[in-house]
């Protein structure tokens, strides 16, 4: 009997090549896409990035947060405050937003991690409410009604020959790709092995010497950083922010729908989920709140019937792994 440990197969090599081609085409987007398509794609990019972060945290580390809007809001508001208060250039303010998000997450993690499991989820939601209410007390940021960016700031975003929309588009793509690469690298590392172990069986992971609490903490902080960066970018494209919109639970709802529909705990799942999410939106946008009712019902149905999501169910059936993070054993019987 002969066996070897391997990560991916032919499917994953093909997937990697396809991905490279698609990415190159998308990077050249500002040259061949019109403004409308660019803005839709940009939205897809940041929703996918937000979903991937949440998936890393909930699907792998087992930390279910219902309070991601806290960091979308903190990121957005940090950007606006940095520009309005100190006149910091937007792209620098963007980086600052990530740092502030991380700094806010430090005390938050200290508080909510005292709660267990599902209660932790609601705890993160409370924190988002507190931050939203707190921000709406700040008069110089427009209090409850919010504020807009001055038009000069918007125009200052151009870099060389790429216009404002192009820069924002590339920024979103950049965050998406680096976010995914980091997640992918992380999952394939020793740390990722710990994460996957926690996903599969937390008590067994702890028994094998994985410091579950530390792993969860690190992932939560990394997610906070990434989500804040994305929040800043999102509000840089929107040019207008308000506490009600930035700290809206719907940010988290959409993220959860994307991940649940696509498949929790895989890197491919959120990609499928984002495509389904935007397709549904395309066709159901006119139905108003029914759109959310349908999304909610769909995610409940999927959670009950196919908890692995669309991707997870397909992958299991055909033994597919496009972006392999795990290892598998290939055993072949060979006559000696």
């Amino acid at each position, binding site marked *: 009997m002969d066996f070897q440990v391997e990560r991916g197969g032919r499917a994953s090599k093909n997937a990697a090549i396809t991905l490279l081609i698609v990415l190159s085409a998308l990077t050249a987007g500002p040259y061949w896409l019109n403004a409308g398509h660019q803005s839709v794609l940009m939205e897809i990019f940041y929703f996918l990035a937000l979903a991937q972060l949440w998936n890393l945290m*909930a699907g792998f580390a*087992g930390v*279910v947060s*219902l309070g991601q809007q806290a960091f979308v809001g903190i990121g957005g508001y940090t950007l606006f405050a940095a520009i309005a208060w100190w006149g910091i250039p937007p792209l620098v303010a963007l980086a600052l937003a990530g740092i502030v998000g991380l700094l806010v997450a430090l005390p938050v993690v*200290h*508080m909510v991690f*005292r*709660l267990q*499991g*599902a*209660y932790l*989820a*609601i*705890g993160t*939601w*409370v*924190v988002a*409410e*507190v931050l939203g*209410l*707190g921000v*709406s*007390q700040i008069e110089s940021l427009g209090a*409850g009604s919010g504020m807009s960016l001055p038009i000069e700031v918007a125009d200052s975003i151009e870099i060389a020959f790429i216009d404002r929309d192009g820069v924002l588009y590339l920024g979103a793509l950049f965050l998406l790709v680096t976010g995914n690469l980091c997640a992918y690298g992380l999952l394939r590392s020793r740390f990722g092995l710990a994460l996957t172990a926690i996903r599969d069986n937390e008590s067994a992971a702890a028994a094998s010497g994985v410091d579950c609490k530390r792993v969860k903490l690190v992932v939560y902080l990394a997610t906070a950083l990434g989500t804040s960066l994305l929040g800043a970018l999102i509000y840089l494209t929107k040019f207008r922010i308000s506490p009600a919109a930035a700290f809206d*639970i719907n940010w988290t*709802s959409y993220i*959860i*729908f994307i991940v*649940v529909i696509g498949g*929790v705990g895989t890197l491919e799942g959120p990609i499928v989920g984002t495509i389904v999410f935007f397709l549904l939106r395309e066709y159901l946008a006119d139905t*108003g*709140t*029914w759109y*959310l*009712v349908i*999304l*909610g*019902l769909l*995610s*409940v149905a999927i*959670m*009950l019937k196919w*908890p692995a999501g669309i991707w997870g169910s397909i992958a299991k059936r055909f033994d597919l792994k496009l972006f392999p993070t795990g290892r598998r054993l290939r055993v072949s019987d060979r006559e000696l």
Partner: protein
Amino acid sequence: MGNWGDIIIQGILLGGLYGLSAAGLSLMFGVMRLVNVAHGDMIIASAFLSLVIQRLTGVDSPFLCLPLVCVLMFACGFGLQRLVLNRALNADMLRPVLVTFGLSVVIQNGMLEAFSADSQRLQANGLEVASVSLGGGLVVGVVPLLIFASCVAVTGVLQWILYRTELGRAFRATSDDPVTAGLMGVNDRNLFAIATGIALAVAGIAGTFTGIRSSFYPTSGPESLLFAFEAVIIGGLGSLWGTLAGGIVLGVAQGLGAGFSSAWQMLAGHIAFLVVLMVRPTGLFPKRGN
């Protein structure tokens, strides 16, 4: 003194409503370790249910609709657990949270579709503006007083069910060890359905009172959930009287915050919760260890 005394009394009475909202959440978690993220939306849904029943029957007072609301909510809870939530219960907690979160979005947006985003209020035949004097210049509304009394009564009844009846014994046994409870003949699926039925019947009371006390919107559910959750954590897991006490702490903190502004009313409540979490993560009145 008059002003402070007033704020504290109002806060305590408001705490009764939070205690009532939290009782169902606490019960479901206690029996099956399920945190119902849609609990707040179910409370608001029952306020709308009262509204609809009142309009259809033309009854003067929502208090008269209350028994019917409770029965209907019990049936909803029983069915929901049998058909949906039982299938979501398993070893990991991701599924129940995401399923009830999905339900929350469905209920909330369903209500928006059915009743529009307008604010609503239950008319209690003038009772909502009536008040009584407690002496010393303290005047309290009849409705808050009634709500508080009901909360104490409901907590007492739940406590009695849990510790003095066969059903309660089965609840506690199943919570300890569901497999062994099965060996005793306990059908956990049915038992869980009864627990959720009771939790939603209590949510029906909480919802109706919420609607009499103040105006409500289809989107009020999350607020209700967060306050209920905070009352449970402040009070300490697994203790029903503790949950009531937690509700009171929350109500008083909100009353004190309301002295500044309406945003501070909310903030003060949340901050009280975070402070308790920092100082005493097990809550103020945790269940004594076994």
